[in-house]
């Protein structure tokens, strides 16, 4: 087992790749009572079209399959994994993103038993026609709940504009009609293709002994046979490299009180692989913080002129096969909001050289934020992106931040901020019916 010590933070991370390909990370946390374990596969909502294990041709599965599979994994023959965790005093949960599906538990006792439950229920699929049909009612309600959420609508709206072809524009949960098509066979096929240990990682943080814990995991895995495996081949539709397929602007009407606006910036540049990809992400985060963070002059101007209010936020999302920036706010002046954001992006090369002092301050800020996240065992484990950033963890970020220069940010701004990659989505209130 590989041990890496981070002296400055008083932490040691233990890592091992098992014979079956599973990556295991263990972080013992001094003084903590709880243990948190998260078991993740590199399979998310965008992975709809793929070559199944052992086959030659592509299949396309219904939208929402990864999320549906996540729900159905808990249902076992004669028992429910959720209840079983409950018997051993653990809380369990699961979530699906565009590119990953994670299953987790947290507990203060019976860690070995709970680890076994976690590994077993995720690795032993059991689906029946009847239980698949029943789940459609529950997930249908989950989808409808999001249908009434204007912020989610806004978010999906901009993704649809930026990625009219790429499946990231499909809601993670799918739609009521797409999930209606899902069958037990579809779920088995997805599981077989993506849930192999070689495509998964396990992260355990908290009140644990690393050697003993790893032994438990190995013991569990040795009792199971896994077939020969090739990493999944997912097919994504080709997109225009110059962003010509981006939908520039759309407006939707909804029962909201104030208009909402979101501006999307699609990354048309290439993100480097591995740790360099993480560096890219941190650079963009710093860059956006300097230009749009709450200590930037640009943000204050937007705020003081009433173009945005406290609801303003920006976000950078980078995952397997896509990356984009979004800026959103409730605003009565969507046109001005657009103009101002576009202007700041266009002027970035003039603004940045004046921000030397702010840059140093921003690095300080980011250091503090890392320390703050290190107090949360969930945050440490959930922030891990596995193979995307070549197994980097939160403890590797400090080194990257330390080396960054303002010139790095100018460079990344030049490659990311392109006017042709911008788009807007707005939600306007419906006319009042009397």
């Amino acid at each position, binding site marked *: 087992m590989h041990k890496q010590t981070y002296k400055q933070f008083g932490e040691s991370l233990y890592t091992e790749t098992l014979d079956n390909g599973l990556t295991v990370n263990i972080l013992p946390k001094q003084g903590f009572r709880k243990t948190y374990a998260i078991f993740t596969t590199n399979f998310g909502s965008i992975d709809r079209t793929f070559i199944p294990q052992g086959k030659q041709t592509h299949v396309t599965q219904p939208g929402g399959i990864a999320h549906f599979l996540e729900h159905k994994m808990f249902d076992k023959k004669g028992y429910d994994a959720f209840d079983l965790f409950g018997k051993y005093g653990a809380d369990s949960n699961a979530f699906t993103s565009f590119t990953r599906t994670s299953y987790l538990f947290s507990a203060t006792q019976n860690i070995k038993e709970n680890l076994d439950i976690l590994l077993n229920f995720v690795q032993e699929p059991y689906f029946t026609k009847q239980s698949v049909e029943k789940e459609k009612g529950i997930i249908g309600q989950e989808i*409808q709940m999001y249908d009434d959420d204007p912020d989610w609508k806004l978010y999906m709206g901009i993704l649809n504009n930026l990625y009219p072809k790429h499946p990231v524009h499909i809601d993670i949960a799918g739609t009521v009609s797409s999930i209606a098509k899902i069958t037990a066979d579809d779920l088995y096929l997805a599981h077989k293709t993506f849930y192999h240990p070689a495509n998964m990682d396990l992260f355990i943080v908290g009140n644990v002994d690393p050697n003993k814990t790893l032994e438990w995991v190995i013991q569990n895995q040795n009792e199971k046979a896994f077939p020969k495996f090739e990493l999944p081949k997912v097919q994504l539709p080709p997109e225009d490299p110059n962003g010509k397929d981006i939908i520039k602007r759309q407006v939707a009407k909804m029962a909201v009180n104030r208009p909402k606006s979101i501006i999307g910036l699609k990354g048309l540049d290439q993100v480097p692989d591995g740790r360099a990809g993480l560096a890219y992400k941190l650079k963009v985060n710093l860059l956006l913080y300097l230009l749009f963070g709450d200590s930037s002059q640009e943000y204050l101007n937007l705020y003081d002129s009433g173009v945005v209010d406290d609801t303003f936020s920006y976000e950078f999302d980078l995952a397997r096969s896509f990356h984009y920036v979004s800026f959103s706010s409730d605003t009565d002046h969507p046109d001005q909001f657009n103009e101002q954001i576009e202007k700041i992006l266009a002027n970035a090369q003039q603004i940045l050289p004046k921000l030397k002092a702010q840059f140093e301050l921003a690095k300080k800020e980011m250091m503090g934020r890392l320390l703050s996240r290190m107090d949360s065992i969930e945050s440490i484990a959930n922030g891990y992106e596995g193979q995307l950033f070549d197994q980097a963890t939160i403890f590797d970020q400090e080194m990257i931040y330390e080396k960054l220069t303002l010139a790095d940010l100018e460079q990344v701004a030049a490659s990311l901020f392109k006017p042709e990659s911008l788009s807007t989505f707005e939600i306007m209130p419906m006319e009042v019916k009397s």
Partner: protein
Amino acid sequence: MRIQIKQGVALTVIPVSQFKNTQISVHFLENASKLKTSYRSLLANILETSSKKYVTQILVSRALSQLYGAGFGTTVMRKQNIHDLTFSLSLPNDHYLDSSEDLLSEGIQFLQEMIFNPLAKDDCFHEQTFQRQQANLIAYINALQDDKQSYAALQLQKLVFNEDEVQSVPAFGDAKSLAEIKNHDLFDYYQLVLAHDRVEIYVVGDVNANQVVNEINQWPFVDRSANSVELTNSEKKERSFQARTENQDVVQAKLDLAYQFPTDFRNDNYYAGIVFNALFGGSPLSKLFINVRERASLAYYANSSVDIFNGLMVVQAGINSQDKEQVLTIIAKQLTDMQAGDFTDEQLVQIKKGLISNYVSSLDLERVYASRELTNDLVGSQISAEEWIDQIQKVSRESIMKVAKQVELQAVYFLSSEVKTHA
């Protein structure tokens, strides 16, 4: 360690070594009226964004960046009748930084500046800041209507409490009273808050208690008598059953129910009440989750929560409009089953395990130390983790049934999607 730094102003230092950050919270507590609830909410917004030294939001943010990205914020909350206006600061411990600065000391000075030196002139807050924060807060409250889950919860609250009760408005106030607040009146009111509110200060982290005491002692607090600001077991109010249905253009309907709930704090009934709620609807192993969601597939969420200080239990579910009666029947059945003791010993053991595990786990969250201590201080009694766990273990089937029999449906609010018009 708890000391009175002035009469009515207490400082509690809670040394915990497992965290890399230090958290300071300063609670201003008062039995505030409905109108003053809105005053306090607006104060929270104004005081968060500026001070004499830091005249713009940027300067506040940069000061926080200097403190290595310390998190600063104001919040408003309410327990029973007590309104809590809180200033909180979370900052990294120097120990983990290559820095010769004394961050804790700087953080305490920063808080002092934000609390005691508001940006003001001629007994008024800075006019532009006042106006902007007033407008933003009203916009925020109006926009809450767009979140249907919160909207339904607020409508239920209005249905349960009479208009003269402070609980009929949320802790962040209401848009109408906010719009009427005058800058000068608000400034005057803040002077009253500073001079008369009960104040509880908590510092949690790997800190030197003496240093903390010495530095916070420098703050210009004055003596005050604030004896009446405490939590009590309020008497059960006679309330008549209320029901209301509203139609909106939504996809998912919201069904929200309120129940009278026994209020005794920290006696046998109290622990039985905690177990009752977890078994009834407060956990994913609960009757509501299993029967409304898992068995009948009628909802994605269906849960219960208890507000012990107001003697209230709330059930929330997101459903299809046409399923309302069926869901109501299932929920009612779960309550009668609880009253009849229709749950297995195994379920009871599991639920208790879950509650205890959550309690122990919460000690890994730094913010919990202060919030738990605040409740203790407002109730005037202490309880250790061991005692709490022991009391939960002791809860019997009979005591849960006894609580269940005191739970009484009081209000039903239904946000229906039935008039849906397709766009």
